[in-house]
């Protein structure tokens, strides 16, 4: 093996000593910064043995938190997905006034602190908020209950599916759909037989990332949930509660479930990227505003 990538003359930084030293330093830092936090979760979760771990997971409050987290994801993720597909269809298949502005608005939640999102929801549905008094007299509970948790989760993940689809559908243009429609296919038929097969991996990619964020969201949910043990505690909130109760083994047992979810998400991400997902938008995956899609080159003028 030569020092550089095979068959190329040595490039900048290919001197063997420098190369080895840099790889060594970087891998050491990766071990400290990325691997150690993951390892310490596993270590702490099982530090008192398998039985304590199993008991911590099987505790009714923990099971309830897991259930609430799953229910939240089961509601928030499909709604988000429908929104993402609709937004991508509207933005990439049509030209209309305010299109670029809409793109920016969809991306806003990425830039906003989850705490700000939570506080903002309080001023809509809380007693001191816009609709609070009306909701109170109608006896509808949104805050400190499941609807509030779902709404806050939908805010923080609003862009996840749309931003995977928009660059891809932009690049694919409108030719195929226009051909299908001109041959007499209905709108739904066109979407399911022509568009969906082309975007399925990117769609799944967006759904996987969206799900990971919904299940792990902490800041926004902690404001709107009210942290009622065994009632409105999602798994991340339950971890905080156990941790501050000095139930370290329990906190890390609960944390290990979410860490496992993170690892599964990373594996799914790698597999989906092999299918070409995530390519159209080359940038940070889970939290960054996407680079503005290039419109001029990709669009088909009609």
């Amino acid at each position, binding site marked *: 093996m030569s020092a550089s*990538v095979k068959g*190329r*003359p040595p490039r*900048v930084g290919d001197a063997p000593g420098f190369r080895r030293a*840099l790889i060594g330093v*970087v*891998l050491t830092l990766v071990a*400290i*910064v*990325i*691997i*150690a*936090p993951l390892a310490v*979760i596993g270590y702490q979760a099982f530090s008192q043995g398998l039985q304590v771990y199993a008991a911590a997971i099987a505790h009714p409050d923990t099971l309830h938190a897991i259930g609430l987290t799953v229910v939240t994801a089961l509601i928030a993720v499909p709604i988000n997905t429908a*929104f993402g597909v*609709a*937004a991508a269809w*509207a933005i990439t*298949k*049509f030209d*209309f006034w305010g299109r670029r502005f*809409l793109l*920016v608005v969809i*991306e806003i*939640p990425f*830039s906003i*602190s*989850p*705490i*700000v*999102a939570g*506080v903002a*929801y309080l*001023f*809509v549905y*809380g007693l001191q*908020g*816009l609709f609070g008094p009306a909701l109170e007299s109608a006896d509808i509970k949104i805050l400190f209950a499941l609807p509030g948790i779902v709404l806050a989760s*939908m805010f923080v993940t*609003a862009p996840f599916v749309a931003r995977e689809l928009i660059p891809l559908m932009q690049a694919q243009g409108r030719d195929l759909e226009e051909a299908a*429609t001109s041959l007499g296919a209905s*709108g739904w038929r*066109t979407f399911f037989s022509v568009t969906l097969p082309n975007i399925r991996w990117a769609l799944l990619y967006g759904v996987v990332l969206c799900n990971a964020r919904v299940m*792990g969201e*902490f800041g926004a949910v*902690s404001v709107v949930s009210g942290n009622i043990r065994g009632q409105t505690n999602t798994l991340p909130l339950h*971890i905080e509660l156990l941790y501050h109760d000095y139930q370290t083994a329990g906190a890390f047992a609960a*944390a290990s479930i*979410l*860490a496992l979810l*993170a690892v599964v998400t*990373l594996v799914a991400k*790698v597999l989906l990227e092999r299918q070409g997902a995530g390519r159209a938008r*080359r940038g*940070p995956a889970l*939290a960054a*505003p996407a*680079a503005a899609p*290039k419109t001029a080159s990709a669009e088909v*003028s009609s």
Partner: protein
Amino acid sequence: MARRILPGFPLALGITLVYVSIIVALPLGALVFKAASLGFEDYWRIVSSPRAVASYRVTALSALAATAFNLVFGMALAWVLVRYRFPGRRFVDALVDLPFALPTAVAGIALTTLFAENGWFGSVLAQAGIKVAYTPLGIMVAMAFTSLPFIVRTVQPVLEDLDPALEEAAQTLGGSDHSIFLRVILPLLTPALLAGLSLSFARSLGEFGAIIFIAGNQPMETEITALLAFIRLEEYDYQAAAAIASVLLIAAFLMLAVTNILQARALRYTARG
């Protein structure tokens, strides 16, 4: 305006607008409305109170330090992943996204345990007299962890697409590695680096979950702005919560504008190259 050939425009745009209005615009509007209803004097009194100003300082300085660390580490990581082949490279490449995939509360308790005085790293650092957990240094560690992927993932594609001919030309002209990196490669990476820096800094300003476990949360010393907004809320001081949250909102919009400008420039730059 072009003719609309494809069906589904009213439905798709309708769903999009309803969702964006209810989920995104309504709450942010309510927050701005609440903060604006304070009146300038009350608003200013709250946002310029010593405790609030101390929280801005802690948040901004820690975010700067974390971003500086990520600038160096993130660029080295991107370089190693793109330019060198070594066993485990793909594994490390996949691991880079872990800070985004790992819920922040989980990251928070993991980092706190590692850096506490009896932790794996904390015990070693304590011998050197360095305290990380429950100090501003801890805030920096949490911010650096949660925003690490930004710089790696913005620099990586640019580094991959870098034309080897540029380096070769510089090498034929007798440039040393050091000077070629500084004069040829670094300028080409700068737009992507700046975009990554602004994303990383913006994320650090708003981070909450990972920080509150490790920060110690002492008012005036290790209390971040997001936590102060949260505390005001728990004290039922909704006006103060709205005002302080609005400061974070304004900071987020400023960073969003900066990021968009930098990314547009980065795109133009790449397109030209």
